[in-house]
């Protein structure tokens, strides 16, 4: 079963983190303090902590211990880095959420509904939220958040339909060996990625071993 839509989180683990899904092999891949959240066209809710797990994206309020939201990667249709202040005043991660409504058409926020929801503080309506923004206090972490989201999304293929072929991303070789990552300067770089060299260069194959021997004797 695919859980669609955003879910309100009212309970937490003893350590203040999210309660992880039992039996689903869920673990926290990354977390970041100082992240605000915007649901739909709603207001910015500041002071939260973002948890990216191997199954879900979870935001927990720092101010209200009963407030939080979670969405599974299966329901996260899209995520992107938004830096255009015309689109939103603050740099953020922009996401679209599949709500599972029979009406899955993209709706340019139904303003009347939204306003009504805001006025009434209808928290139960989180399930119908189609867009969510994550606004870190430090915009420098956007690239990292984006990358972790990509990595964890890949851990969650859709259950139906067998995958075809090898389970690997296809990359532009120049980009990979140029050490570029998504979101960086677009100019190609000639500098090889050091991590790649260390792993792939046969000269380093027994480096660890030698090091151990050196230490031991």
């Amino acid at each position, binding site marked *: 079963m695919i859980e669609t839509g955003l879910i309100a989180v009212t309970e937490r683990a003893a350590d203040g983190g999210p309660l992880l899904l039992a039996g689903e092999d869920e673990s926290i891949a990354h977390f970041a303090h100082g992240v605000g959240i915007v649901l739909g066209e709603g207001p910015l809710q500041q002071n939260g902590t973002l948890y990216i797990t191997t199954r879900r994206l979870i935001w927990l309020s720092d101010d209200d211990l009963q407030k939080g939201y979670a969405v599974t990667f299966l329901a996260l249709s*899209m995520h992107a880095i938004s830096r255009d202040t015309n689109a*939103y005043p603050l740099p953020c991660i922009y996401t679209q959420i599949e709500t599972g409504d029979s009406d899955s058409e993209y709706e340019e926020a139904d303003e009347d509904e939204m306003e009504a929801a805001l006025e009434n503080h209808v928290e139960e309506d989180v399930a119908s939220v189609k867009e969510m923004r994550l606004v870190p206090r430090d915009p420098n972490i956007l690239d990292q958040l984006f990358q972790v989201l990509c990595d964890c999304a890949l851990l969650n293929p859709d259950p139906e339909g067998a*995958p075809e072929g*090898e389970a690997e991303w*296809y990359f*532009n070789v120049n980009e990979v060996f140029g050490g570029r990552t998504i979101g960086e300067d*677009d100019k190609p770089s000639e500098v090889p990625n050091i991590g790649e060299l260390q792993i792939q260069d046969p000269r380093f194959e027994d480096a660890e071993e030698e090091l151990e021997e050196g230490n031991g004797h």
Partner: protein
Amino acid sequence: MLFFSYFKELVGKEVTVELKNDLAITGTLHSVDQYLNIKLENTRVVDEAKYPHMLSVKNCFIRGSVVRYVQLPPDGVDVEILHDATRREARGT
């Protein structure tokens, strides 16, 4: 498999990805995987008037399951490769 193989050839080219929610995004294809998850760079929304808040999403990850169409650049369509690929696919090899 055919689509995956074919889309790999398009990495670095500009494509337009149309989602099932009618949103269409144009950008440089950065990478694609076997689930047809798609990463685009330097994206722009095709219908800017309709989706003003999406204006400049720079990098974008789109789940394969929400993709309806991928529009190819005319110069990205290598008829020979397509012929070959479809023949091989038809033979089931």
